[in-house]
């Protein structure tokens, strides 16, 4: 297994901010208070963790349903030779948040969110036509959990 170069304080910070990044005027002061370091130290630590690539992003996690947005998981069987091209075309839609090649059939899986299902369908229909593929759409019925938390 690859060894990371995190020290105990880094781990503490990452565990804390994966749960919640403070929603207040001085978030780094809050974080610093919780783990006993200054605002400046908390800021610099987090900045460095971001630069080193441990943190992908810090930002809002939205609840699609309550914002009246529609979201599908989609699966398609795509030939290996053109999968990258298809994926890149799909990624042009800004509502596409996850797009993975997976072992198995279907082998291309992505999530897409939009204002209406008609809008999403129109986009997907065009992709289907362009690449002569079928995109299976699995609308969400119920969310039991969305929480990526990696204990460090």
């Amino acid at each position, binding site marked *: 297994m690859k060894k990371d170069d995190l020290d105990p304080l880094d781990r503490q910070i990452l565990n804390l901010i994966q749960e919640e990044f403070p929603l207040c005027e001085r978030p780094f002061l809050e974080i610093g208070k919780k783990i006993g370091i200054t605002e400046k130290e908390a800021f610099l630590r987090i900045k460095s963790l971001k630069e080193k690539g441990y943190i992908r*992003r810090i930002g809002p996690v939205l609840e699609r349903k309550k914002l009246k947005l529609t979201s599908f998981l989609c699966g398609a069987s795509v030939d290996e030779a053109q999968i990258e091209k298809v994926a890149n075309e799909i990624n042009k839609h800004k509502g596409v*948040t996850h797009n993975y090649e*997976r072992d198995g059939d279907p082998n291309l*899986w992505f999530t897409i969110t939009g204002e209406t299902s008609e809008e999403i369908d129109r986009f997907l229909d065009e992709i289907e036509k362009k690449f002569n593929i079928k995109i299976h759409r*699995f609308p969400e019925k119920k969310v039991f959990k*969305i929480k990526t938390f990696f204990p460090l």
Partner: protein
Amino acid sequence: MKLSLVDEKEILKKIPSDFPLVERPYGIIAENAGMEEKDLIGILRQMREDGKLRRIAAILNHRKVSYLYNGMVVWKVKEEEVEEKGKIMASYPEVSHCYEREKSGFWDYNLYTMIHTKNEREFFEKVKEISEKTGIKEYRVFLSKREFKKTGLSLKNE
């Protein structure tokens, strides 16, 4: 401050999915959006209370933090058991996402989970454990091979 959903979405359009890394990120975001920092914070707090904003948080790069192995597992669950089984699956820390989805006339799998572990052995052990705990024997595993995109949902035109 209580706004209409339309106005709230307008504000979300001005918020990046990845905050600028400065000491007062809400200050910069508010400035770029032409509003006061305290108003922005107030609106976001209200949205969090209403459940439209789940939370503000750091999303880690799972490959970098040693959670190298991940995959999607789809489960075939009886309609009347979805609630119970979905809750059990969601209770595992290794399960980051758990959704019930339409079968869409494609197949009979209706419960979707994303599972993250540090290695292959742990992954399949976890899948087996979940299967035994829930009694769901019919499932399929789709391991991640290549990432084409992974980002947060943003209403902002970036």
